[in-house]
């Protein structure tokens, strides 16, 4: 695998991106990678764009990934997938996105157009990005979308060396007791 391997995660404040980034960080650590990462906080947590950077490999010094330099983008929402695809995806990289739609202000105010999936496909082709959509009907809590994504990453071995056991250990490290079971169940299901 390329080293450092740059994973850029993006979503909307409230989607629980912290769970995703912390699980991946710990899973990668369990898999033996040297890791450095950072979550963006601040004002953005009130419904704005939130992102997390995670870099695997001892060559990674700064926790921040350069725009256009992500080997893997994980997006929790369609408009954010579009943003990261344009700004962060490296040519020839992978983008995994959960197809939730939380329209930004100007779309709701009808000042900007709706974003269709075709736009993602078109830009992905231009950048030779392999686009992978995840979606689960009827999740009891939208924050479980993070676990659906983790499950997808695991089943398709999107990140080399990280095993199912690494993901599980990471989830047990960070999930509060009362929600562990149902999240693990979702993680282990084939969706």
């Amino acid at each position: 695998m390329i080293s450092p391997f740059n994973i850029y995660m993006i979503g909307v404040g409230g989607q629980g991106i912290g769970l995703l980034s912390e699980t991946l960080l710990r899973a990668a650590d369990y898999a033996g990678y040297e890791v450095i990462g950072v979550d963006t906080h601040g004002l953005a947590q009130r419904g704005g764009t939130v992102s997390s950077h995670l870099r695997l490999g001892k060559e990674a010094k700064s926790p921040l990934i350069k725009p256009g330099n992500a080997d893997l983008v994980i997006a929790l929402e369609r408009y954010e997938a579009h943003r990261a695809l344009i700004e962060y995806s490296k040519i020839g990289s992978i983008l995994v996105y959960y197809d939730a739609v939380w329209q930004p202000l100007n779309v709701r105010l009808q000042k900007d157009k709706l974003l269709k999936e075709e736009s993602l496909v078109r830009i992905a082709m231009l950048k030779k990005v392999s686009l992978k959509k995840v979606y689960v009907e009827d999740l009891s809590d939208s924050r479980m979308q993070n676990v659906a994504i983790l499950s997808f990453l695991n089943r398709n071995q999107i990140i080399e060396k990280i095993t199912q056991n690494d993901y599980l250990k990471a989830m047990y490290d960070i999930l509060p007791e009362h929600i562990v079971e149902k999240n693990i169940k979702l993680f282990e299901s084939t969706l």
Partner: protein
Amino acid sequence: MKDLSVVLSSDKINSEILMGNYVIVRAMLEAGVNVVTSYPGSPTPEIADAISLVKDKYDDFYFEFSVNEKVATEVAFGASVNGYLSCVFFKSVGLNVAADSFVQLSLLELIGGMVIILGDDPGANSSQNEQDNRHYARLSYMPIFEPSNPAELYPMFKEACRKSQEMKMPVIFRLSTHICHAKQRISFDKYTRILKDKVSKFRPENGPYIPITSSVFPMKRKALQKLSQFALYSENSRFNYVVDNNSEYGIITSGLTYLSVEDFLHNQKNKPDILKLGITYPLPEQMICKYLKKHKFIKILEELDDFHEQLIKTIAFNNKISTTILGKQEIEDRIGEYSPDKVESILLNTWPDLFNCSPKYSIEKIENPIPRPAQLCPGCGHRSAFYAIKQALQKDDISVADIGCHTLGFLPPYNLGQALLSMGHSNGTAAGLSIFNDKRKVVSFLGDSTFYHAGIPGIINAVYNNHKHTLIILENGTTAMTGHQEHPATGKNFNNDTQKIPLRNVLEGLGIKSIREIDTYAQSKLIQAVKDAMAEDNFSVVIAKHPCMLKFVRSVRRAKKALPKPVVITAKCNKKYKCISEFACPSYQIDENGQVWVQTDLCIGDGSCKQTCPSDAIESQKIGDNND
């Protein structure tokens, strides 16, 4: 779930993945810190989260959120001159609030030691500016330690404490947003924490502690002598070092910028040498002279202002060193965080012949992503307030914002809050706007935590000087923006239950007669109350209150109770779009046929939107199961 309190407090060798804000708490425990104070502000509030995990394990470790940064600094100062090692932490602009007391610290013998932890915010990720607080160090004769990442933070913070204690002087420990929040695996040392005997050691003769008129001069002299001594120490500190790549080109840098430089040089054949400064003030003059002389070309790479550039060019001039020294070359070099891409473009611009250029990335021009500004949460009481207040105001009236979640009222469609300076400024600014202004009414906004922080003097001034604007206090019962910390009206402090100081009582105590108090969900009552208050010929107050709904939702989920089901839009909807274009709850979305739909991931079923629909098309559903 892993118990981080064990990791943080274990006195054995161990290791864990932690963010900088947690690592610093472990370092505090090892260094023997006794008293820590703060006022919440990004990027530092997680330091308090980590403290809350361990504070009960130690009998000699005290923390409080003080009422503002100035008071927090004073509490930490008091503890230090009483013999306890103390720390105060706050965000970048918090130092402006603290400054009046802060600038005095170096004049005084801090017998217990005191470290001021600054969370600077290059890039203005969550602040109203990106001020470079290194200038304060020079202004107030204090040294600065500045790590690049959590791994360096850990030993460096312990050293900062040790030096502060040894020299009885204040020391600044400067962090920035992406060092506070960076996460990596840290190996912790074995240590022994010796319980501090609780004996008050304050003695006036340890001072003097009264700087007044000519007594200031010996105190200032001593402060300057300590700073000179510190500069000598800095010459040999392990935190200032050279990365030798055997080049005639040399970079001088520090903090997160250093990591950006390392990232850039990773793929470069010609690597300049790097002088990495961990003590960023006062500078090690001999070390710098030697470094300058050894190189033909020097680039000073520093985030924000040309602080080091000015100092280093002075050193070069005084020592007759003729090396070419480049610093800031254009205005943009002073703006924003020195992230890897920014540093790459600056270095390519500085020495274009030295480096291979990475292929330029051009696809971004094809399409612009749609911006997503921060929003008030679904059910937020401020939304109902702004929706109502907008209807009470005339088009030409002036509204003054303040700091808090409610600052977001400036966004469309509310556009309320048209000027902003700082925490608690709104009543001073509103008073100024109302002078020689008979035609346009002025309203000011203020949050409840900010009321206690710095809001009260502006209110007293309005009463005292007969100003006639209307203050609207947006009371949500918490310090929401920074993570729901308690404040003086909540009945709790960080450690205990405490007596409430209700803000209405404070206002009444000031003699304010015109006070109206309305729950913001009662939108038509609020419209009337604001209209009535603004019609009065005196200073008037409207307390527009509703509990923070984000806090409420979290508490319901934690208690595994049921939230109301999301609202539904019935066939009565005839696309007037008030819910979208005027109330603008993010739960309301629109499809390609212009039909409004409810994003059920977002809607909390509060129903505050129902009264905005002219067609009565929004309906609540019965309480359903909550599966969390």
